[in-house]
Protein backbone atom coordinates (compact mmCIF):
# COMPACT_ATOMS: atom_id res chain seq x y z
CA UNK A 1 0.00 0.00 0.00
CA UNK A 2 1.42 3.36 -0.97
CA UNK A 3 1.38 6.13 1.63
CA UNK A 4 -0.11 8.57 -0.92
CA UNK A 5 -3.53 7.08 -0.36
CA UNK A 6 -3.40 8.32 3.23
CA UNK A 7 -2.81 11.99 2.33
CA UNK A 8 -6.48 12.90 1.78
CA UNK A 9 -7.39 11.35 5.11
CA UNK A 10 -4.61 13.23 6.85
CA UNK A 11 -5.61 16.55 5.28
CA UNK A 12 -9.34 16.21 5.93
CA UNK A 13 -8.77 14.82 9.44
CA UNK A 14 -6.37 17.62 10.29
CA UNK A 15 -8.83 20.22 8.98
CA UNK A 16 -11.64 18.73 11.06
CA UNK A 17 -9.43 18.86 14.16
CA UNK A 18 -8.34 22.47 13.60
CA UNK A 19 -11.83 23.70 12.72
CA UNK A 20 -13.53 22.04 15.70
CA UNK A 21 -10.90 23.42 18.09
CA UNK A 22 -11.40 26.87 16.60
CA UNK A 23 -15.19 26.82 16.91
CA UNK A 24 -15.16 25.48 20.47
CA UNK A 25 -12.59 28.02 21.67
CA UNK A 26 -14.54 30.83 19.94
CA UNK A 27 -17.66 29.70 21.82
CA UNK A 28 -15.76 29.75 25.12
CA UNK A 29 -14.49 33.25 24.37
CA UNK A 30 -18.01 34.56 23.72
CA UNK A 31 -19.30 32.93 26.91
CA UNK A 32 -16.55 34.55 28.96
CA UNK A 33 -17.53 37.97 27.60
CA UNK A 34 -21.11 37.16 28.61
CA UNK A 35 -20.35 36.53 32.28
CA UNK A 36 -20.68 40.15 33.50
CA UNK A 37 -24.48 40.48 33.06
CA UNK A 38 -24.76 37.02 34.57
CA UNK A 39 -23.33 38.30 37.86
CA UNK A 40 -25.88 41.14 37.97
CA UNK A 41 -28.60 38.52 37.58
CA UNK A 42 -27.26 36.42 40.48
CA UNK A 43 -26.99 39.43 42.81
CA UNK A 44 -30.49 40.49 41.81
CA UNK A 45 -31.79 37.06 42.78
CA UNK A 46 -30.39 37.49 46.31
CA UNK A 47 -32.02 40.91 46.84
CA UNK A 48 -35.51 40.88 48.38
CA UNK A 49 -37.22 42.48 45.34
CA UNK A 50 -39.14 44.97 47.47
CA UNK A 51 -38.20 47.76 45.02
CA UNK A 52 -38.37 50.02 48.09
CA UNK A 53 -35.55 52.35 47.00
CA UNK A 54 -34.19 52.65 50.56
CA UNK A 55 -30.72 52.01 49.11
CA UNK A 56 -31.08 55.25 47.09
CA UNK A 57 -31.31 53.32 43.84
CA UNK A 58 -34.64 53.18 41.99
CA UNK A 59 -35.02 49.45 42.56
CA UNK A 60 -33.33 46.14 43.27
CA UNK A 61 -31.85 45.57 39.83
CA UNK A 62 -30.19 49.01 39.61
CA UNK A 63 -28.68 48.34 43.05
CA UNK A 64 -27.41 44.96 41.81
CA UNK A 65 -25.75 46.71 38.86
CA UNK A 66 -24.22 49.26 41.25
CA UNK A 67 -22.85 46.44 43.45
CA UNK A 68 -21.04 45.00 40.44
CA UNK A 69 -19.52 48.46 39.92
CA UNK A 70 -18.28 48.42 43.54
CA UNK A 71 -21.14 49.86 45.65
CA UNK A 72 -21.14 48.95 49.36
CA UNK A 73 -23.20 45.93 50.46
CA UNK A 74 -24.83 47.48 53.55
CA UNK A 75 -27.60 49.48 51.90
CA UNK A 76 -30.43 46.97 51.60
CA UNK A 77 -32.56 47.57 54.71
CA UNK A 78 -35.39 45.12 53.98
CA UNK A 79 -32.89 42.37 53.21
CA UNK A 80 -31.21 42.80 56.58
CA UNK A 81 -28.12 40.98 57.74
CA UNK A 82 -29.09 37.79 55.96
CA UNK A 83 -28.98 39.34 52.47
CA UNK A 84 -25.84 41.21 53.42
CA UNK A 85 -24.04 38.00 54.40
CA UNK A 86 -25.25 36.19 51.30
CA UNK A 87 -23.96 38.99 49.05
CA UNK A 88 -20.60 39.03 50.86
CA UNK A 89 -20.27 35.26 50.37
CA UNK A 90 -21.20 35.44 46.70
CA UNK A 91 -18.81 38.28 45.89
CA UNK A 92 -16.09 37.43 48.43
CA UNK A 93 -16.10 41.03 49.67
CA UNK A 94 -16.36 42.62 53.16
CA UNK A 95 -19.94 43.29 54.27
CA UNK A 96 -19.50 47.08 54.34
CA UNK A 97 -19.32 49.77 57.00
CA UNK A 98 -22.14 48.53 59.25
CA UNK A 99 -23.87 45.27 59.97
CA UNK A 100 -27.57 45.73 59.29
CA UNK A 101 -30.08 44.66 61.96
CA UNK A 102 -31.60 41.26 61.45
CA UNK A 103 -35.11 41.70 60.10
CA UNK A 104 -37.90 39.24 60.48
CA UNK A 105 -40.00 38.95 57.35
CA UNK A 106 -42.80 41.48 57.83
CA UNK A 107 -45.94 42.34 56.00
CA UNK A 108 -48.38 45.20 56.23
CA UNK A 109 -52.03 44.85 57.17
CA UNK A 110 -54.80 47.43 56.87
CA UNK A 111 -57.25 47.78 59.76
CA UNK A 112 -60.19 47.64 57.44
CA UNK A 113 -62.75 49.22 59.80
CA UNK A 114 -60.72 52.43 59.75
CA UNK A 115 -59.89 52.52 56.02
CA UNK A 116 -61.51 55.43 54.18
CA UNK A 117 -60.78 54.14 50.67
CA UNK A 118 -58.49 57.03 49.71
CA UNK A 119 -56.33 54.89 47.33
CA UNK A 120 -53.11 56.64 48.47
CA UNK A 121 -51.47 53.42 49.70
CA UNK A 122 -52.26 51.50 46.50
CA UNK A 123 -50.56 54.18 44.43
CA UNK A 124 -47.22 53.83 46.18
CA UNK A 125 -47.16 50.03 46.49
CA UNK A 126 -44.21 48.89 44.33
CA UNK A 127 -45.49 45.31 43.93
CA UNK A 128 -49.21 46.06 43.46
CA UNK A 129 -50.15 44.04 46.54
CA UNK A 130 -52.89 46.47 47.61
CA UNK A 131 -56.29 45.97 46.06
CA UNK A 132 -59.66 47.57 46.75
CA UNK A 133 -62.28 50.03 45.59
CA UNK A 134 -62.01 53.83 45.86
CA UNK A 135 -64.29 55.36 48.53
CA UNK A 136 -64.91 51.91 50.01
CA UNK A 137 -61.94 49.99 51.38
CA UNK A 138 -58.58 48.51 50.53
CA UNK A 139 -56.75 45.42 51.69
CA UNK A 140 -53.29 43.92 51.29
CA UNK A 141 -52.56 40.59 49.62
CA UNK A 142 -50.29 39.05 52.24
CA UNK A 143 -48.61 36.63 49.85
CA UNK A 144 -47.41 39.49 47.66
CA UNK A 145 -46.55 42.07 50.35
CA UNK A 146 -42.80 42.49 50.78
CA UNK A 147 -42.93 44.58 53.98
CA UNK A 148 -41.24 47.57 52.37
CA UNK A 149 -43.18 50.07 54.56
CA UNK A 150 -43.73 52.47 51.66
CA UNK A 151 -47.51 52.49 52.21
CA UNK A 152 -47.32 53.61 55.87
CA UNK A 153 -46.39 57.33 55.50
CA UNK A 154 -49.06 58.25 52.89
CA UNK A 155 -51.99 56.79 54.90
CA UNK A 156 -54.04 59.79 56.22
CA UNK A 157 -55.73 57.78 59.01
CA UNK A 158 -52.72 55.62 60.01
CA UNK A 159 -54.58 52.36 59.68
CA UNK A 160 -51.69 50.25 58.36
CA UNK A 161 -49.73 48.03 60.78
CA UNK A 162 -46.59 46.01 60.16
CA UNK A 163 -47.07 42.46 61.33
CA UNK A 164 -44.47 39.73 61.79
CA UNK A 165 -44.96 36.77 59.54
CA UNK A 166 -45.96 33.74 61.58
CA UNK A 167 -43.44 31.00 61.12
CA UNK A 168 -44.73 28.90 58.23
Amino acid sequence: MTPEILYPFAILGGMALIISTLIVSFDRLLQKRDREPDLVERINDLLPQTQCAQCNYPGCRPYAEAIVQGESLDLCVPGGSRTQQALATLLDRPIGAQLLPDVEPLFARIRELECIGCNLCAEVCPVDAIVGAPQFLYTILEDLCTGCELCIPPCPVDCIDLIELESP
Partner: protein
Amino acid sequence: MLELLLLLGAALLVNNFVLVQLLGLCPFIGVSHRLDTAVPMGIATIFVISLSTLITNFINTHLLEQFDLQYLRIIVYITVIASVVQLTERYVRFASPLLHQLLGIYLPLITSNCAILGVALSVADYALPQALAVGIGAGGGFTLVIVLFAGLRSRLDEKSIPQPFRGAPIALITVGIMAIAFYGFKGAL
Protein backbone atom coordinates in the same frame (compact mmCIF):
# COMPACT_ATOMS: atom_id res chain seq x y z
CA MET B 1 -1.27 47.79 -6.81
CA LEU B 2 -3.07 48.95 -9.95
CA GLU B 3 -3.54 45.33 -10.94
CA LEU B 4 -5.14 44.56 -7.58
CA LEU B 5 -7.52 47.54 -7.92
CA LEU B 6 -8.43 46.43 -11.45
CA LEU B 7 -9.17 42.90 -10.23
CA LEU B 8 -11.31 44.30 -7.40
CA GLY B 9 -13.24 46.60 -9.76
CA ALA B 10 -13.71 43.82 -12.29
CA ALA B 11 -15.15 41.47 -9.66
CA LEU B 12 -17.29 44.29 -8.24
CA LEU B 13 -18.95 45.47 -11.47
CA VAL B 14 -17.89 43.81 -14.72
CA ASN B 15 -17.99 40.21 -13.55
CA ASN B 16 -20.56 40.82 -10.83
CA PHE B 17 -21.21 37.39 -9.40
CA VAL B 18 -24.95 37.85 -8.96
CA LEU B 19 -26.03 39.74 -12.05
CA VAL B 20 -23.47 38.67 -14.65
CA GLN B 21 -22.45 35.18 -13.55
CA LEU B 22 -25.87 34.47 -11.98
CA LEU B 23 -24.48 32.90 -8.80
CA GLY B 24 -25.95 33.24 -5.31
CA LEU B 25 -29.46 34.11 -6.41
CA CYS B 26 -31.15 32.37 -3.46
CA PRO B 27 -30.03 34.75 -0.69
CA PHE B 28 -30.26 37.59 -3.22
CA ILE B 29 -34.01 37.06 -3.64
CA GLY B 30 -34.55 35.81 -0.07
CA VAL B 31 -33.04 38.60 2.03
CA SER B 32 -33.72 41.62 -0.20
CA HIS B 33 -37.21 42.31 1.16
CA ARG B 34 -35.97 45.00 3.51
CA LEU B 35 -33.00 47.33 3.49
CA ASP B 36 -32.18 46.73 7.17
CA THR B 37 -31.62 42.99 6.60
CA ALA B 38 -29.96 43.42 3.20
CA VAL B 39 -27.09 45.56 4.55
CA PRO B 40 -26.00 43.20 7.39
CA MET B 41 -26.39 40.22 5.07
CA GLY B 42 -24.10 41.90 2.55
CA ILE B 43 -21.52 42.68 5.22
CA ALA B 44 -21.62 39.09 6.52
CA THR B 45 -21.18 37.85 2.94
CA ILE B 46 -18.19 40.16 2.31
CA PHE B 47 -16.58 38.85 5.49
CA VAL B 48 -17.23 35.19 4.66
CA ILE B 49 -16.12 35.50 1.01
CA SER B 50 -12.86 37.31 1.74
CA LEU B 51 -11.88 35.13 4.71
CA SER B 52 -12.77 31.83 3.04
CA THR B 53 -11.08 32.85 -0.23
CA LEU B 54 -7.92 33.63 1.73
CA ILE B 55 -7.94 30.31 3.60
CA THR B 56 -8.88 28.14 0.62
CA ASN B 57 -6.25 29.80 -1.55
CA PHE B 58 -3.62 29.11 1.10
CA ILE B 59 -4.73 25.49 1.48
CA ASN B 60 -4.80 25.03 -2.28
CA THR B 61 -1.26 26.23 -2.94
CA HIS B 62 0.41 24.81 0.17
CA LEU B 63 -1.42 21.52 0.65
CA LEU B 64 -3.47 20.33 -2.28
CA GLU B 65 -1.07 21.20 -5.10
CA GLN B 66 1.93 19.97 -3.14
CA PHE B 67 0.43 16.51 -2.81
CA ASP B 68 -1.35 16.52 -6.19
CA LEU B 69 -4.77 16.37 -4.57
CA GLN B 70 -6.70 18.96 -6.62
CA TYR B 71 -9.66 16.58 -6.82
CA LEU B 72 -10.30 17.28 -3.10
CA ARG B 73 -10.84 21.00 -3.81
CA ILE B 74 -14.63 21.11 -3.60
CA ILE B 75 -15.01 19.14 -0.37
CA VAL B 76 -12.16 21.02 1.34
CA TYR B 77 -13.49 24.40 0.18
CA ILE B 78 -17.02 23.66 1.36
CA THR B 79 -15.71 22.58 4.77
CA VAL B 80 -13.74 25.82 5.13
CA ILE B 81 -16.70 27.96 4.01
CA ALA B 82 -19.08 26.15 6.38
CA SER B 83 -16.80 26.71 9.36
CA VAL B 84 -16.29 30.40 8.55
CA VAL B 85 -20.08 30.75 8.32
CA GLN B 86 -20.45 28.99 11.68
CA LEU B 87 -18.05 31.45 13.30
CA THR B 88 -19.91 34.38 11.73
CA GLU B 89 -23.27 33.04 12.86
CA ARG B 90 -22.07 32.56 16.44
CA TYR B 91 -20.73 36.09 16.49
CA VAL B 92 -23.96 37.59 15.12
CA ARG B 93 -26.03 35.62 17.64
CA PHE B 94 -23.79 36.94 20.42
CA ALA B 95 -23.65 40.54 19.18
CA SER B 96 -27.28 41.03 18.13
CA PRO B 97 -29.88 38.31 18.81
CA LEU B 98 -32.48 40.48 17.03
CA LEU B 99 -30.47 40.58 13.81
CA HIS B 100 -29.90 36.84 14.13
CA GLN B 101 -33.66 36.34 14.22
CA LEU B 102 -34.29 38.73 11.30
CA LEU B 103 -31.78 37.00 9.02
CA GLY B 104 -33.15 33.63 10.13
CA ILE B 105 -32.28 30.64 7.96
CA TYR B 106 -30.40 32.78 5.42
CA LEU B 107 -27.47 33.31 7.75
CA PRO B 108 -26.42 29.62 8.01
CA LEU B 109 -27.40 29.28 4.35
CA ILE B 110 -24.46 31.52 3.37
CA THR B 111 -22.70 28.14 3.39
CA SER B 112 -24.64 27.06 0.35
CA ASN B 113 -24.37 30.44 -1.38
CA CYS B 114 -22.81 29.25 -4.62
CA ALA B 115 -21.21 32.66 -5.23
CA ILE B 116 -18.78 31.95 -2.37
CA LEU B 117 -17.72 28.55 -3.68
CA GLY B 118 -17.66 30.07 -7.17
CA VAL B 119 -15.23 32.80 -6.09
CA ALA B 120 -13.04 30.33 -4.21
CA LEU B 121 -12.84 27.98 -7.20
CA SER B 122 -12.28 30.70 -9.80
CA VAL B 123 -9.30 32.19 -7.93
CA ALA B 124 -7.68 28.80 -7.24
CA ASP B 125 -4.67 29.56 -9.45
CA TYR B 126 -4.15 33.18 -8.28
CA ALA B 127 -1.56 34.35 -5.79
CA LEU B 128 -2.79 35.29 -2.31
CA PRO B 129 -3.16 39.12 -2.71
CA GLN B 130 -4.93 38.80 -6.05
CA ALA B 131 -7.29 36.18 -4.63
CA LEU B 132 -8.09 38.45 -1.69
CA ALA B 133 -8.78 41.37 -4.06
CA VAL B 134 -11.20 39.27 -6.10
CA GLY B 135 -12.83 38.00 -2.90
CA ILE B 136 -13.44 41.47 -1.49
CA GLY B 137 -14.62 42.70 -4.89
CA ALA B 138 -17.07 39.82 -5.26
CA GLY B 139 -18.43 40.33 -1.74
CA GLY B 140 -18.72 44.06 -2.34
CA GLY B 141 -20.52 43.38 -5.62
CA PHE B 142 -22.99 41.10 -3.85
CA THR B 143 -23.62 43.76 -1.20
CA LEU B 144 -23.98 46.55 -3.77
CA VAL B 145 -26.49 44.62 -5.83
CA ILE B 146 -28.52 43.31 -2.88
CA VAL B 147 -28.77 46.80 -1.35
CA LEU B 148 -29.81 48.36 -4.68
CA PHE B 149 -32.34 45.60 -5.21
CA ALA B 150 -33.76 45.97 -1.67
CA GLY B 151 -34.29 49.67 -2.39
CA LEU B 152 -36.04 48.88 -5.67
CA ARG B 153 -38.18 46.23 -4.02
CA SER B 154 -39.41 48.56 -1.30
CA ARG B 155 -40.50 50.97 -4.07
CA LEU B 156 -42.18 48.12 -5.96
CA ASP B 157 -44.26 47.24 -2.91
CA GLU B 158 -46.05 50.58 -3.14
CA LYS B 159 -46.92 50.36 -6.84
CA SER B 160 -50.07 48.83 -8.22
CA ILE B 161 -48.77 45.86 -10.17
CA PRO B 162 -51.07 43.58 -12.21
CA GLN B 163 -52.11 40.58 -10.12
CA PRO B 164 -50.18 37.85 -12.03
CA PHE B 165 -46.90 39.75 -11.68
CA ARG B 166 -47.04 40.47 -7.94
CA GLY B 167 -44.25 39.14 -5.71
CA ALA B 168 -41.59 36.89 -7.21
CA PRO B 169 -42.34 37.46 -10.96
CA ILE B 170 -41.87 41.23 -10.86
CA ALA B 171 -38.79 40.73 -8.66
CA LEU B 172 -37.23 38.41 -11.24
CA ILE B 173 -38.09 40.80 -14.08
CA THR B 174 -36.43 43.62 -12.11
CA VAL B 175 -33.31 41.47 -11.60
CA GLY B 176 -33.23 40.84 -15.33
CA ILE B 177 -33.35 44.56 -16.14
CA MET B 178 -30.64 45.21 -13.54
CA ALA B 179 -28.52 42.48 -15.13
CA ILE B 180 -28.89 44.15 -18.55
CA ALA B 181 -27.70 47.40 -16.98
CA PHE B 182 -24.69 45.63 -15.48
CA TYR B 183 -23.78 44.19 -18.89
CA GLY B 184 -23.11 47.82 -19.82
CA PHE B 185 -19.95 47.65 -17.68
CA LYS B 186 -18.52 45.00 -20.02
CA GLY B 187 -16.37 47.44 -21.98
CA ALA B 188 -15.51 49.64 -19.01
CA LEU B 189 -12.43 47.85 -17.68
